């Protein structure tokens, strides 16, 4: 009887131990029967990379990250990886770590440093021998966080503007708007980079981006027209162009809707984004109409006003100019939110200018300084 108990308990415990060992081994994604070798690469920083993250080579999983530690003598971070022994590494081998999705899962990729996708990256070379050079792509979430911060700044500034639109706030506002443009550029550049590196854009989005390229051409045209109009100082032409702008944007929205018909969620997002753009353009048009009667009186400030508008347009252009950005914008809720926030803020400013043009006209020349 007692012996039977012991046998049953023993069998169950043994089974559990096997299950734990087998389970952790399997869940950690190890492979049986393949000899592994260890490679080490140096990085300036590794973002969210963790032990157990996959190591890929030409898109094929070949191992996993087994250790992350700070390198000796300020060499940055040393990442140890277990990879299949039979791997044939390229001569100018390097390792790139990057996020796989927006949700914090990262990967390490073994690449040739001269590959077009990674050529512009700055690889960290360790002083220790047998350590491969490595580079990390920035984390998308960090960029969007910066964008969010700037959007906040713009909002704070807008509030201040209502209280006291002084020379200082005008300058700051201009800076903030500049920052928005810059971060937008940064995001779009980054997204393109990622798109190339991952080669993971889904088939549907690829088709959509083709159409979007056409659509964005219109945006570029619109922006240029606006720019020309403002520079020429021709109010009548400017007004005409503004109308055309909003018309074009509307067409663009329609085109985009068509282009992304196969991707329902993409449609709604992109549509919403484009409607926002059209509304913004509409606002600009209305604002200018309000200002029209007074424009002649404030001739000297006209040039500065043009410049201010140009800055705004640049923002719009940055968004529209780049197919990667738009695709990403449509697919990335966070980035989309940030963009929306920035647009809303700018629109609020426009609405305010419309309601109390006098207050702004007095100070608007400051914007150009």
């Amino acid at each position, binding site marked *: 009887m007692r012996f039977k108990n012991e046998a049953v308990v023993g069998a*169950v415990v043994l089974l559990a131990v096997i*299950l734990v060992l087998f389970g952790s081994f399997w869940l950690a*994604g190890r492979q049986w029967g393949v000899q592994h070798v260890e490679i080490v690469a140096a990085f300036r920083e590794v973002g969210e990379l963790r032990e157990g993250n996959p190591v890929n080579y030409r898109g094929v999983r070949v191992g996993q990250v087994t250790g992350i530690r700070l390198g000796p003598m300020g060499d940055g971070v040393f990442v140890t990886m277990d990879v299949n022994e039979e791997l044939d590494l390229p001569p100018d081998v390097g390792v790139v770590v990057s996020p796989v999705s927006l949700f914090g899962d990262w990967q390490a990729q073994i690449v040739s440093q001269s590959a077009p996708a990674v050529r512009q990256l700055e690889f960290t070379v360790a002083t220790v021998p047998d350590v491969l050079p490595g580079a990390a792509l920035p984390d998308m979430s960090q960029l969007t966080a910066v964008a969010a911060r700037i959007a906040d700044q713009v909002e704070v500034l807008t509030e201040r503007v209502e209280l006291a639109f002084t020379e200082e706030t005008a300058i700051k506002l201009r800076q903030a708007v500049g920052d928005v443009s810059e971060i937008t550029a940064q995001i779009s550049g980054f997204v393109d980079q990622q798109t190339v590196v991952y080669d993971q854009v889904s088939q549907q989005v690829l088709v959509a981006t083709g159409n979007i390229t056409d659509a964005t051409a219109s945006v570029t045209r619109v922006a240029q027209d606006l720019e020309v109009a403002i520079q020429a100082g021709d109010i009548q032409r400017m007004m005409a162009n503004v109308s055309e702008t909003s018309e074009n944007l509307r067409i663009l929205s329609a085109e985009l809707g068509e282009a992304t018909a196969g991707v329902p969620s993409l449609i709604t997002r992109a549509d919403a984004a484009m409607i926002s753009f059209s509304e913004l353009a509409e606002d600009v048009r209305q604002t200018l109409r309000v200002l029209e009667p007074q424009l002649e009186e404030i001739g000297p400030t006209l040039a500065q006003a043009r410049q201010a508008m140009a800055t705004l347009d640049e923002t719009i252009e940055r968004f529209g100019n780049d197919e990667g950005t738009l695709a990403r914008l449509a697919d990335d809720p966070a980035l989309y939110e940030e963009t929306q926030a920035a647009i809303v803020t700018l629109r609020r400013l426009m609405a305010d200018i419309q309601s109390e043009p006098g207050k702004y006209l007095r100070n608007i020349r400051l914007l150009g300084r």
Partner: protein
Amino acid sequence: MSAQRSFAWIGAKSTEGFAAFGRFSSFTAEAGRAVPDLKTWGKLLFPLMKRIGVDSIPIALFLAAFTGIVLALQASYTFTGAIPMYFVGTLVGKTMILELGPVLTGLALSGRVGANIAAELGTMRVSEQIDALETLSYNPHSYLVVPRVVAGLLMFPVIVVFANAIGIVSGWITAINLLEMTSQEFIRGLRLFFEPFDITYSLIKTGSFGFAITLIGCYQGFTTTGGAQGVGTATTRAVVLSSMMILVLDAFWAVTLLQ
């Protein structure tokens, strides 16, 4: 006057609470001192490991299987659109291993094991069997408490290993059959954030649950007074207290090990 009375009530209650805690502590210390007495409890261990551990596996598996199904379905329900479906695997795996496997099993077994121990030892107490053990110069702590607590400590993790495995497998099957996911997708999600420490954490936590449930059951059994009704009270109290203790320990481990 009534304020005075309520202060007195609070005072009495807290004194009572401290005294109860003191008694529990000295009971635990007594049990601790009995641990080296391997000669007495060693041979009692296997039958108890079977009774407390092996016999509890079916109920644990039943719970885990349904939990796995629900987790998979709820994950996909929550993830509409924006989040890739392979995260269903992540959610099922992580939640099962870190939280629901240990805690649900713990709660179920506080009823099955905790109540059983409290009722058994409570009956032994009121029918003077524990006194009889003493007169035969057995230390009832070595003879009754230690083997039960050790069996709980050892077998609860074993039970939860199976529960976790079944939970994940049932989530997996659900994902394939009801969510139109592929095995590859599910496994990808499962492996995404997996760390071997997850399993260690799960096992440590469950071990502590086993320890708490059996110890509280033994304590309630040992301090039973007053016949069949007393045994009933002790049993209820054992289940309530060990369920509470499971949740407290759950939070404790999360604070100490997951930060």
